[in-house]
């Protein structure tokens, strides 16, 4: 629940690209000299990993891990496959049952939600975990371009008209990570730890063409802070300081 402050976990660090990254802009440029598939860039022309790219990868990773049954007591749903833990019909029923008792409705939604939806959010419950867009901290980036071609299965040669190219953010590019967890309970913290560990171990890939060698990233130089009732006054007055560091991961 979000109506009261319980705690806040803030993760700051650097994401470094172990392999080149391709997060496409999603539209072709009008410029005929530009590549077929350019990467998304910020207003300064530097590469950018949208928060949604990283959050989506982490969410689907956690969903798969929890669905395996290896973590006892944790629930996971497949929210994009029409099998959500809390459906639209469930919420309609709750709204009819409790009328305008919004707190009661929210409590029932929270109770019915799986661990993944509680942390990463759903249509009916906001996410506890927030990931900001990851801007590059490098001063300049030299984007690379790769060519690809489709191979004719009969002749084994290049198929006519199947030549394409795409832009990549080179490996070694560094991005600034800012991740926030609000009102996390013990279960949420365990999931946050999983996310941070796989990031630190370089087990996560973002963007497109990850099966073709791209996208592996790693978290380095991370600093994790925990704000709770004991240091909330200090946090809202002066911001984060070293005494708020949390080293439990």
């Amino acid at each position: 629940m979000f109506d009261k402050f319980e705690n806040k976990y803030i993760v700051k660090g650097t994401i470094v690209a172990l392999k080149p990254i391709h997060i496409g802009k999603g539209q072709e440029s009008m410029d005929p000299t530009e590549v077929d598939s350019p990467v998304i860039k910020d207003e300064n022309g530097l590469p950018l990993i949208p928060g949604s790219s990283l959050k989506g990868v982490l969410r689907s990773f956690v969903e798969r891990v929890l669905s395996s049954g290896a973590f006892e007591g944790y629930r996971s749903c497949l929210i994009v496959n029409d099998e959500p833990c809390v459906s639209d019909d469930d919420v309609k029923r709750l709204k009819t049952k409790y009328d305008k008792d919004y707190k009661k409705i929210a409590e029932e939604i929270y109770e019915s939600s799986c661990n993944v939806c509680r942390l990463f959010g759903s249509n009916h419950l906001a996410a506890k975990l927030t990931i900001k867009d990851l801007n590059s901290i490098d001063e300049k980036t030299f984007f690379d371009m790769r060519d690809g071609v489709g191979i004719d299965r009969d002749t084994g040669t290049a198929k006519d008209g199947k030549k394409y190219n795409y832009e990549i953010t080179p490996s070694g590019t560094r991005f600034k990570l800012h991740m926030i967890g609000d009102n996390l309970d013990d279960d949420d913290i365990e999931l946050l730890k999983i996310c941070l560990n796989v990031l630190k171990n370089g087990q996560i890939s973002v963007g497109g063409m990850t099966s073709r060698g791209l996208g592996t990233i790693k978290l380095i130089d991370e600093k994790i802070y925990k704000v709770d009732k004991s240091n909330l006054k200090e946090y809202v007055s002066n911001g984060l300081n070293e005494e708020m560091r949390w080293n439990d991961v």
Partner: protein
Amino acid sequence: MIKVKLNLISPLIVGARNLVGNFLTTKDYIPGDVIRAAIAREILRNCPLHDVGRPDKDGRYNWIYIRDGEKCSRCKYKGWCSNFSNIRFYNFYYDGARPFPLSAMKCKYHNDHGLVDVLFNKKSECPRCKERVEFATGYYKDGKMVDVPKRFFTRTAIDPYTKTARDGGLYSILAIEEGSTFEGYVDGTNDLEEFKTLRIGADTSSGFGKCEIEICSEGAGNEVDLIERIEKLNKIVGKRQYGGKTYKTLITLDFYSDMIPDIDYNIPLKTTDDYKELWKKILNLGFQYDVIKVYSESNLYRGYDTSKPTDDMREKPSVYIEKGSVVLIGTNEDIDGIKDKLYSAEKSGIGQNTANGYGNVKICDKIHLNGGN
């Protein structure tokens, strides 16, 4: 009387009404009482002696008056507080336009083809393209209809527990765009320089209604001007015969703002003559005259009175005559004998609540002097 411009720095919502469901729209002009309320709020906000919970001696809350003779004598708003109820705030209209006169028709196909005043003119065709004409509402300036620019804002309420959009919490506001300018008059004070900016209308705490005040010049007509207008109108009309009577002088009254009649409505009405008699009572000009023609629409009005102590601050609903209404009267009295009364009507307004912009009337408006063009 000072002519004042309000330059909108942020979008404006005035007298928002629910059109359908969750759709709110603004009025397209700023009533005088909204300006008065904005100035009153600014004065009270800066008044160290104002106690929200304490009424004045007549039980009115949020009232502007001299609270302490000695302390108030050092305040820059003392001129306002000593005279606030006597200051008249006129309605403010977009870009200095006027309400489209209900006695006029406009080209059906072109908004900029001027108008045909059918008060004296039986021809009903566009003066420029000779096409069909129609009655209209809205605003008119320099020979064309004026549109007030508006834009949408869509918002939603957030459930504090789930931080998602609250069910049924989505609503849209159609507000007047920032950058627009409204013009009007304030009568009875010269101290408007005290206010550089104001927050006007609704939702001022969430970014709406901020405007700059620009003082233009002394405005409005004088007595000589009024008599010239009457003489010019009668010269143009020529024949002054209506209903078998010949009148010495014809006079038109154009309502530049809504008017709340100061009469008892509980009168059975049957014939046109009954309505004309009712209009004589409404106008109450104080001399002998007949009501010849009336182009008018009426509506129900209900505002809020923030000086009331209860939670329900709504005023009693009352009938009001809509702005743009036009009345033609005929009299056999000498102009010299009635000019003071006509001047007084133009200066003070007709009906109730004239201090807040209601009942603003223009006698023999120039729109009738040349067919509107």
